[in-house]
C-alpha cells in the first residue's frame, strides 16, 4: 500500500483527499503547513508527496528544495492560481509533476501512479530504455518503435532519450534545452516546438498523446496506458 503525504493548508481538501485516496488503497498522511509537512516527510518517509505551492508559512518551491536536499521521493505539486512560472520553478527544483486546482480524484490517482512508477525505474543506468513501444539503444543511438527502426537525427535522438530517461515526469523547456543542446541554448524555446513536431511525426504521434506538451511549461513522455492529462 503506497504511503501518500498531502501538504495543503485547506483542511477541507485534505479530508476529502484522505477519503478518496484511502478508497483507492493508499495510506494517507496529511499536513496543513510547511513545517508539519517537512517533519512528516522526514519521519514517516512517504512514497509520494502532494505539495501545495501556496502554504501559509513557507513558499512551496522552498519546501520542494528542502525535500530534495535529503530525498528523491516523487513530488506532485498543486497550484491554485495556475501560475506557469511557479510550476516551472517547482519542476526545475525537482518536482515530478504538477496539477492545477480543482482536480478530480481519478486524475490525482493517475498522477500519483505515474510518479510512483517513474520513481521505481529511475536511477537504473543502462544502455537501453523502453517506454511502451519505444526502444532506445543509447550505446548506438538507435531508436525503434514496435521493432521498426526510426530515422532520427542525432539531436532528435538526444531529445527523445532525455524525455525517455524521465518518462512520466514533466521536463521543463529549460531543463531539456540545457541538457540536450547545452546551457548556451537555454532560451531558444522555439527549437523545442520544431523538434517535438518532427519527432511526433516520426513516431506517428501527431495528436501528442505519447509525447505530451504544455506550451508554457514543458514536455513529457507518457508511458502508454497511464493516461493522465497533459
Amino acid at each position, binding site marked *: 500500500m503506497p504511503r501518500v503525504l498531502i501538504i495543503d493548508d485547506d483542511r477541507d481538501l485534505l479530508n476529502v483527499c484522505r*477519503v478518496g485516496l484511502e*478508497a*483507492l488503497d493508499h495510506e494517507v498522511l496529511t499536513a496543513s503547513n510547511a513545517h508539519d509537512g517537512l517533519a512528516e516527510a522526514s519521519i514517516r518517509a512517504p512514497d509520494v508527496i502532494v505539495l501545495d505551492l501556496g502554504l501559509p508559512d513557507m513558499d*512551496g518551491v522552498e519546501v520542494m528544495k528542502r525535500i530534495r536536499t535529503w530525498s528523491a521521493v516523487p513530488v506532485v505539486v498543486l497550484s491554485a492560481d495556475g*501560475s506557469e512560472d511557479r510550476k516551472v520553478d517547482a519542476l526545475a527544483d525537482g518536482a515530478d509533476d504538477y496539477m492545477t486546482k*480543482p482536480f478530480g*480524484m481519478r486524475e490525482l490517482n493517475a498522477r500519483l501512479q505515474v510518479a510512483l512508477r517513474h520513481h521505481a525505474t529511475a536511477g537504473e543506468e543502462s544502455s537501453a530504455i523502453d517506454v511502451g513501444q519505444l526502444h532506445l539503444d543509447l550505446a548506438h543511438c538507435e531508436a525503434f518503435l514496435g521493432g521498426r527502426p526510426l530515422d532520427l537525427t542525432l539531436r532528435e535522438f538526444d531529445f527523445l532519450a532525455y524525455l525517455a530517461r524521465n518518462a512520466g515526469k514533466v521536463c521543463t523547456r529549460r531543463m531539456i534545452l540545457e541538457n540536450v543542446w547545452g546551457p548556451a541554448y537555454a532560451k531558444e524555446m522555439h527549437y523545442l516546438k520544431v523538434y517535438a513536431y518532427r519527432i511526433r511525426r516520426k513516431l506517428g504521434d501527431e495528436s501528442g498523446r505519447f509525447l505530451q506538451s504544455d506550451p508554457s511549461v514543458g514536455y513529457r513522455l507518457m508511458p502508454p496506458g497511464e493516461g493522465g492529462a497533459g
Partner: protein
Amino acid sequence: MRRTLPGTAAALACMALLTAVMLPLRDSVSIATTALVLVVPVVIGVVTGGFAAGVISVCAGFLVYDYFFIPPYLTLDVGAPQNWVALGVYVIIMLPVARVVAGMDISRARELRQGRELRELFELSDLLVEDKPLDVLLTVIVTTLADVSGARQVALFLPAADSARPGAENQRLELAASVGEPLSDEQLRGVLPAPGALMSLKPHSPERSALTVIALTASGRPVGLLALSADAAAHHEREPLLLFVNHIALAVERAQLREQAMRTRVNEEMARLAKTLVAAVAHHLRAPLASLKASSSTLADTELNIGQEARQRLAGTIDVQADRLADMVGSLLDMSRIQAGVLQPRCTVAAPGTLISGVLDDPPPTWREYEIRTEVPADLPPIDADLVLVSRVLANLVDNAVRHSPPGTPVTIRAELRPTGDTIEISVTDSGPGVVPARREEIFELFPRRQHDAGAGLGLTIAKTFVEAHGQRIWVEDAPGGGARFCFTLPVAAAIPEESRLAASTHH
C-alpha cells in the same frame, strides 16, 4: 454729479458764515484781504463737490464780494477803479484754483480705483496659481474680471470637451463660465459665428450689445476666448486686464492638463483593479471549488469502494463548500457595491450582545470543534450599525480564527467600550500562530503582495470593506497569550434615550 449739490451747499454755507463774521469788520479790513478770505469757501466747494461746485462757489463768491464788501455796499456797482482790479483778480485767480484742485481730486480718485483694481488682480493671480478644479477656477476668473472691469457681462469660452483632445479637428468652442446677464443669441453669434457666416472685425462697435473679445493663448496655442461687454471698456482702462489675459490662459491650460492627467491616472487604476480583481476572485474561488471537485469526483466514481460514513462526509463537504461559494459570491457583490458607492450600510440600533449571539446561533460545522467563548459586559451601550454587514464581519473573523487554530482550542469573542466612549471594540482572539508584524496590513488586502501567498482568503478583505463602510477601523494585533487578536470598532448609538430604545426594540 452726486457730489455737486452737497459740495455747493457746503461752500455756500461756509461763505454765508464768513460773510456774517466779516461784515462788522469790513471797514477796518482791506478789500484784498476780504478776497483772500473768500478763497476758502471756493476751495471747500471744489474739494467736496468737484469742479462744478467750485464754479458755482466762484460765482457766488463774486456776487458776495461785490455786493457786501466793495463800496458802494449792497449794490452791484463798483466804485473806485482799484476795486475793479480786486474783483477781476478774484475771479481770474479762483477759476484756475478750482480747476487745479478739482484735477487733483480726480487723479486721487483714479489712483484709488486703479489701486483697487490692481489689488483685485493680484488676488486673482493668487487664486489662479492655486490648485482648483477647472470649473471652480473658471467661475473665479469671470467673477473677478466682472468686479475689476465693471463689465455687465463676462463670458469665457473653451473648446468643447469632445473636441478638446490635442490634434482634434474642428475644435468647437462652447460657453464654459459666465457672469452677469446671459449673452443674447445675437452676441453668441458674434463670438461663435456659424461656419460661412460673415463677421465684422470692426474693433469698437457703438451698439450697447457689442462685446470685446480677447483670445486666450498659452505659448502660442489657443486656449479659449474671453468676452466682456463693451460698456466696461468705455469707462475704464483695460491695460491691467489685458496684461492679465496671459495669466488666465496659462492657469486655464494648466487646470485642463491637470484634470486630463488625473483622468488618465484614474482610468489606468480602474483597468489595473479590474484585471487584478478577476485574478484575485478566480484565485479565491478555486479553494472551495477544489474541495467540491475532489468530493464530487470521488462520489461519482462508481468503481471506488467508499463506506457509507465516508460518503456522508463527502456529501457534507460538498454542502458546506457550496454554501461557502455562495456566501463568497454574495459578499463579493456586496463588496463591489460598497466600493462603487451603490450600497450604503443600513444602520439600525442594537445591543452588541444581540449581534454576537446572532452570529453564534447557527454555527457552521467547522466551528463545532472549537470552544467559542464570549465576553460581553451587560452594561454596554447599543451600537448603530448595519447588522447584516457587521454579522458577516464577525462571522468571517471567527471563521478565520477557526481556520488558523488547532482543533479544540478556545476562540474568544469580546466586546468592550473604548476609553473614548463613542465606539465599541469587538475582538476575536485565537490560539493560532499569530500574524507577523510585516503582514498585518496586507492580510486584509484583496491581492496578497506575494503571488504564492495563500492569503487569508477573501473573508478578511470583505470584513475590512464592510467595517470601513461604517467609517470604522479593523486591525490585527498579538493576543496576550499568543495567537492573533482581530479587532474592529463600531459606533455607539447617539444618546437619545427614548429614540434609541425604541429603535432597538422595533428592530428585533
